[in-house]
């Protein structure tokens, strides 16, 4: 019999009370889902992608349902990093949340500016979104070229002592190349996967559903791709990994951890099941109890490959 389960995980020196994170862009700044779970319930919350100045985002429609998933092209609508530091961050920290600031720029200078601003706050970690496919000016270029990943990660690394997570794009031939580049440049952790570029067309109007024509695909359909990529990255680098992409159930969360994730993030599936983070944690506890696992960290990397 196990007396007490240890659900805590340590990512780059930061203690998460459990391995459940909510993914950037799917949980705003933690206010909206309070009816279902409090931000302090989570291991950590990754807030909506921030830019140096406030950003209006793309014209609607910004979302389309696809089989077992969805496409989005929000276009990084956000109040800007300064407003975040002034309003949202103090509130979240007061509420006891572990906060990951997700930053998304168009230039290396943008990332450095935000890292410097956030470095002097009490934010827990920074997550560099170098893989958002929605910003035409360069989001994709940064995230898909290992040289660029290394360059931008080094530049940001020099600006902050905060634990630095690099969020990897799945829109690449070899994700281990960008993962290694981030590790070489001094990243403290990796998160993956961001969305896969997709498209949906209305055959009556011949118009794409999304006003942006293309958008990022996420949700259950991408789950096997995410598991595969986490597994590959686990075998290529020694950094901690926050695994995400299509996780909707505890079984999937456990699968992702077995593939090598130290923590997991829940995103699009909350739109259908806003209580998913709570249910997933309950399911993980049951799995641990049923299988005599005392520490949740023992699940990580436990896959037995052929």
């Amino acid at each position, binding site marked *: 019999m196990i007396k007490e389960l240890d659900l805590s995980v340590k990512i780059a020196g930061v203690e998460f009370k459990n391995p459940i994170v909510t993914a950037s862009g799917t949980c705003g700044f933690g206010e*909206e889902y309070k009816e279902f779970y409090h931000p302090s319930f989570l291991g950590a919350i990754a807030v909506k992608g921030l830019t140096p100045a406030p950003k*209006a985002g793309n014209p609607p*429609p910004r*979302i389309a*349902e696809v089989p077992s998933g*969805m496409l989005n092209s929000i276009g990084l609508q956000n109040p800007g990093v300064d407003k975040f530091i002034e309003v949202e961050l103090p509130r979240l920290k007061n509420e006891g949340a572990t906060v990951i600031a997700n930053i998304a720029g168009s230039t290396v200078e943008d990332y450095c500016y935000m890292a410097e601003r956030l470095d002097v706050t009490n934010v827990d970690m920074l997550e560099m979104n170098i893989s958002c496919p929605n910003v035409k000016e360069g989001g994709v270029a940064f995230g898909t070229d290992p040289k660029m990943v290394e360059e931008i990660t080094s530049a940001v690394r020099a600006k902050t002592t905060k634990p630095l997570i690099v969020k990897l794009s799945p829109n690449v031939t070899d994700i281990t190349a960008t993962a290694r580049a981030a590790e070489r440049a001094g990243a403290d952790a990796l998160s993956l996967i961001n969305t896969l570029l997709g498209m949906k067309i209305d055959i009556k109007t011949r118009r794409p559903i999304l006003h942006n024509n293309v958008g990022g695909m996420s949700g259950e359909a991408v789950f096997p791709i995410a598991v595969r990529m986490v597994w590959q990255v686990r075998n290529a680098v020694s950094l901690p990994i926050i695994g995400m992409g299509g996780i909707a159930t505890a079984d999937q969360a456990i699968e992702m951890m077995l593939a090598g994730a130290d923590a997991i993030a829940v995103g*699009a599936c909350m739109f*259908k*099941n806003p209580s998913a983070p709570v249910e997933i944690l309950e399911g993980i506890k049951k799995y641990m109890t049923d299988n005599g696992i005392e520490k949740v960290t023992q699940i990580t990397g436990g896959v037995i490959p052929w």
Partner: protein
Amino acid sequence: MAIYTIEKNERICEAAEIYRLTFKAPDITAKASAGQIIHIVCGGDANSLRRPISICECDGDSVIICFEVRGAGTRELAARGAGDTIDVIGPYGKGFPILSGKVALVGGGIGIYPLISAAKAVKAAGGEPVALLGFRNKELMNMTDTFDNYCDKVMIATDDGSYGHHGFVTAILEQYLDENPDASVFVCGPRGMMAAVSKISLEKGNECYVSMEERMGCGVGACLACVCKTQFVGNEGKGEKYTRVCVDGPVFNAKEVIWE
């Protein structure tokens, strides 16, 4: 989030697949106000996103919604019957103001349903709701008897003239506003119609509230998928921004909405 039991689901129009679905949900009826939205898991092929549907009416402990079959999700919903369950979150959003004066409720297509709860609320507040409803033809008319129950008057326009006024509902609105210059206007329907009704109302100097429609993700204000363009006046002057329909709307003062 909760699972509720369906009490009734009946087709209410022969010419179109329009259903009226009733489910018992005292926690929703206790909170709901006119024009708010609920979000439903439909299932089947519609398995990733909830579907936003307006509350048509609260009747005691029961919520009534009306919907037209448009795709996979609404088709699933149409197939449910009494005793089946339904997974719903809500109510969410800012609904119609509860006014106690004259209110013209202008609706078209699936946009007429939230106006029923508005009519009921205005009537209960001592106001004078009048419905101006547009349909393509006589066969597609539905729920007009319910409007009759709550409204002082119901006026109908059909595109083909098979019933009531021949033409668009905007024509009868202009006439109504000329006769009732102090009336407010609530509108919900196809985008073009809402834009036209807003324009007419504002030009004549009448207050106007529009219930916007946009594709939604989370439904609770977290994902920023459901935005419409609005104008605001703030400390730094006038500007435009994208505002969430799901929680900052669906009802907006027409003065704020930028149609493009």
